[in-house]
């Protein structure tokens, strides 16, 4: 794997492919039944990593381990090791509140809270100790501009967020996550509940976030064309004997043009999946 990354020097200089998050032998079980097993990979910094694979191969389950949302699911256990800088994420001593501020999550179904548009952003900020209301207001304006929502909602910040359209809701969800200034964004099929135009807007936004703020983004998608358009690295998950496995992880160019694994080849050529 290291070798394959080095083959792509034109895309990323060696200095820039510092792994930000190292995942080692990660497995997740729902009531002792494995959803995926023995996943080992390093997430490169300031890059977009796409995770693709057939339904039920454990992509969403993989994402929820990374910020310990798996703790919330009864009967769900995780084994292995995830290292983020000096932080051992799976350690029982890790502070999940701080961790989840560092690793933001965007869900498939937009889930703004049933409160005003503005409060959707200010309430989490308050919770994380931003006491000054002027500062909070500035952040609201900043993140809404970042997601391209400001011009659409600046006159109705007090309206209930549930009155927004699906695409606007999703961008609001991204905005409120950005407001907490995470280092990593996890996105679980963020476009699949949206129409093609909203989906395109969100996709552009993801690219912009990477370019402007150097976010590290891990995105699950069912849309291979989308993965091709935005990903720097791509991982393929696949079900093998009733349990998800990481089949291949490579820079996107190599993944789509010269994959190592036969399964990947079949998948990207549309024979499987």
């Amino acid at each position, binding site marked *: 794997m290291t070798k394959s990354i080095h083959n792509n020097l034109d895309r990323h200089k060696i200095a820039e492919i510092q792994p930000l998050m190292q995942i080692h032998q990660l497995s997740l079980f729902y009531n002792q039944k494995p959803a995926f097993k023995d996943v080992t990979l390093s997430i490169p910094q300031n890059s977009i990593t796409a995770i693709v694979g057939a339904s039920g191969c454990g992509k969403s389950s993989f994402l929820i381990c990374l910020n310990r949302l798996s703790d919330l699911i009864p009967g769900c256990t995780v084994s292995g090791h995830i290292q983020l800088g000096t932080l051992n994420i799976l350690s029982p001593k890790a502070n999940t509140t*701080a961790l989840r*501020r560092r690793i*933001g*999550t965007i869900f498939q179904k937009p889930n*703004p*809270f049933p409160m005003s548009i503005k409060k959707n952003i200010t*309430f989490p900020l308050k*919770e994380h100790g931003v006491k000054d209301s002027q500062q909070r207001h500035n952040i609201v304006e900043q993140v809404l501009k970042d997601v391209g929502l400001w011009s659409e909602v600046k006159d109705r910040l007090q309206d209930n967020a549930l009155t927004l359209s699906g695409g606007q809701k999703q961008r609001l969800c991204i905005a409120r996550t950005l407001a907490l200034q995470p280092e990593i964004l996890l996105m679980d099929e963020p476009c699949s509940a949206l129409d093609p135009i909203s989906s395109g807007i969100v996709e552009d936004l993801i690219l912009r976030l990477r370019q402007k703020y150097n976010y590290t983004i891990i995105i699950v998608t069912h849309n291979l064309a989308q993965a091709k358009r935005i990903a720097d690295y791509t991982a393929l998950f696949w079900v093998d004997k009733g349990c998800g496995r990481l089949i291949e992880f490579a820079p996107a160019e190599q993944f789509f043009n010269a994959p190592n694994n036969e399964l990947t080849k079949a998948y990207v050529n549309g024979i499987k999946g």
Partner: protein
Amino acid sequence: MWKPKTLSLFPLRNWFKYRKDFLLVWLLRGLSAIAGIVILLILGFLLREALPVLEEVGITAFFRDDSWNPGEKSYNLVPMIWGTGLTMMGAVLLATPLGIVSALFCHYYAPMPIASLYRRLIELLAGIPSVVYGFWGLVVLVPLINRLHPPGTSLLAGIAVLTLMILPTITLVADASFAKVPPEYLMGAAAMGLSSWGTIWQIVIPSAKSGLFTGVILETGRAIGETMAVLMVCGNVVQTPDSIFDPVRTLTANIALEMAYALDNHRSALFVSGLLLLGVIIVLAIAAELVDREAS
């Protein structure tokens, strides 16, 4: 022959299916009409029985007379309205926060086995006959209060017993409305590292608001209507209480105590208090309906 409203291009081969629908619809309509009619009949009956005394002394007599002494043509219901109002308010004020907090505990903090055990317990509490609560209040609670401040049978005893009795109502309704809070909200809140407290206060309670209101209205109705238990522990002295240690008599207890021997205007006056209770309950039912409609 009855025909379905939609046009059919083909002969109705399965007309019996429509026929069955038709019968079911009318059966259901008939049954709900009966339920409605029964309520109207009760209301009409109460009005008919209450009318003689209302015509004779007028409605103001029930609020202005010197005392409740129907033998002497004195019909003041105010002390008993206080009795009903104060026991109800005390119980609702105590039971509502307790019920909501215990439903929150059950839903978000308790481990699975404890939560389900707790739920069963609350359901059991809801099923205990009111006379048993009254009995318990009389032999356990009243002597305790008596030691604190005689006589023991008092407004406080009534509030305490009523609180226990309506606690299951608000707890179960609150539990059900928390279960309806979309899990995406909770996942979203957790994913941003929000505290449980902030999540509950800012997201869960507001989303469950209409359910909680309905719960409060239901428990209020139950508290107003409760008769046997309050009769057993409240002391039943007709007076406007000065402290929570004073005995009181509620409207319901008054009806139960005097119905057996009341005659003429006295009997009619008891129906007036029944009418008053029914009126309050109807207002509460309408309020519950409005809250429900507001929510949807």
